């Protein structure tokens, strides 16, 4: 059992000693995944609303694709993005491989299907009569849309939680397109892999605990938002 206690002790020292490298890794993780989830929301919410509210030819196929996309293997996404951004790839001239931008691109691709599928289900569950009611009170189309988002906010928070949780904790894609460059593209998950491979369990465990703490803190915040939204639920 010493392996756990020793690692915990080392990890505690590492976190409290103010070692710059650890917090650089943590801030890179938050910056990359935060930006990726924000972009995924900008792209995914309108798509989710479209799929949840409108009926059109190809809608079912699109829903199947996005639902299946929730289980998209990150290594597959990493492979596609790496190939696309590699020197011989179609976007090779941009020289983005092994950059934070490449990592954001990969994470956006992973998060978008999650945001789309969950938000489509959430807005689709808002009764259409409620939208008629708003329109019948004179609401413009954009106001009806905002009301729908507000009514579906419990589900939308789940979409944010799902998207953020999936990308902050994934390792395959960021490893392949970021390259785990120290001070540049090293994030918590790739660093944990790196430290574990070197046998530095203390550093790995310290970062794993920070990662867990972030995931838990984000979810506490989101669940408390859901609970306050529930308070106003309809009879």
């Amino acid at each position: 059992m010493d392996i756990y206690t020793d690692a915990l002790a080392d990890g505690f020292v590492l976190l409290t000693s103010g070692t710059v490298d650890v917090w650089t890794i943590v801030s890179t993780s938050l910056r990359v995944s935060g930006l990726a989830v924000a972009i995924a929301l900008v792209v995914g919410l309108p798509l989710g609303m479209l799929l949840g509210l409108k009926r059109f030819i190809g809608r079912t196929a699109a829903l199947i694709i996005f639902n299946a996309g929730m289980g998209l293997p990150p290594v597959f996404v990493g492979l596609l993005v790496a190939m696309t951004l590699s020197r011989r790839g179609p976007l090779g001239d941009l020289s983005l491989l092994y950059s934070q931008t490449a990592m954001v691109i990969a994470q956006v691709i992973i998060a978008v299907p999650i945001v789309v599928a969950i938000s489509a289900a959430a807005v689709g569950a808002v009764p259409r009569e409620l939208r008629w009611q708003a329109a019948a009170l004179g609401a413009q189309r954009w106001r009806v849309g905002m009301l729908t988002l507000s009514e579906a906010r419990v589900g939308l928070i789940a979409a944010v939680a799902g998207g953020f949780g999936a990308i902050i904790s994934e390792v395959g894609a960021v490893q392949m397109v970021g390259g785990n460059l120290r001070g540049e593209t090293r994030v918590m998950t790739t660093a944990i892999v790196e430290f574990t491979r070197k046998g530095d369990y203390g550093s790995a465990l310290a970062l794993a605990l920070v990662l867990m703490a972030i995931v838990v803190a984000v979810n506490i915040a989101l669940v408390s938002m859901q609970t306050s939204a529930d308070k106003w639920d309809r009879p």
Partner: protein
Amino acid sequence: MSTPLAIELLGVRRGFARSGFALEVDRLEVPAGSSLALLGPSGSGKSTLLHLLALLEAPDAGSVRIGGREVTPADRDVRLQIAAVFQRPYLFKGSVLANVAYGLKVRGVERTERERRATAAFETVGLAGYETRGVAQLSGGEAQRVSLARALAIEPRVLLLDEPLASLDPLLRRQLARDFARIARESGATTVWVTHDQDEALIVADRTAVLRDGRIAAHGSADDVMALPVDEWTAAFLGVAAAQRGRVVGSADGLVEIAVGEARVFASGEAEIGAEVHVAVRPEDVLLFAAGSEMPVTTARNRLPARVTSLEPRGATLYATLDAGGALLASTVSRAAATELALATGTDTLAVFKATAVRWRPIDNG
């Protein structure tokens, strides 16, 4: 009080390819400030019609005219004059005040004025003091009152109600029907009230249109439509006897003599001799006497020998249908009276009713 707007539908067609259902209304008018009950069974097109009036959708053909001009869902200035209350309250998540003020917010009314008008609407619907409650704290009846307050707060010139009481229990429904009808009348708006309940229709509106399979089967004053249903289906739907055709054979001293089959029926009014008319008498206005009995002196002008053609229980009373020489009548009688008169199918009786109880209307052959 707002200035009401007249509503008119002309040649309106709205089809649904999948179900094959089509709404076809050649003409329907609701004069400014009046109230129309749109009656009909489930699936008859009432709600579709209301959606067209609320400018939530456009007809495939024909025109919807509000305030004297043709309008479409794109006419936001007209949409802002309309408010609708649906079968279920569909309150938005949030406070009750936010719900009632929603229509005002949409119209860009500033906050203090929004709250003042919302508070006034709460008072109108009898929910003063409810402003800070959450919608989850309301009973079904309260939620529907909030829904009405939400519509009234914008001071609409057209108020549309789509079976607003249908999801409530019968006792509460009757209470609220009277309240809602009074409030709607006092609002001054032109009101269209969709319902499948004829008693509710009589309470809430002064005009009635009956919708059947997407078409207007009857249209007129509530009294006329209920008392003079011109076809068997409408009569059956309303639970009354259908009006019969007759011909005016005499008219003098404010009395019209109408030939219905072999019988002669006297009605109050004046008409041209030879005119074709629809005529009906409400069952509750027809008194039955033993055949051949000595009649006291009475103001009832109509005394027709009749034969009972059927007798069936309707709640606490019996409903007798009668053939008076070709004039088909009905009468509601108490069980005690039926026993005393020994009423049964095939027995003879004397049907007595006043001329003022006879409803009649010239048939428009055009």
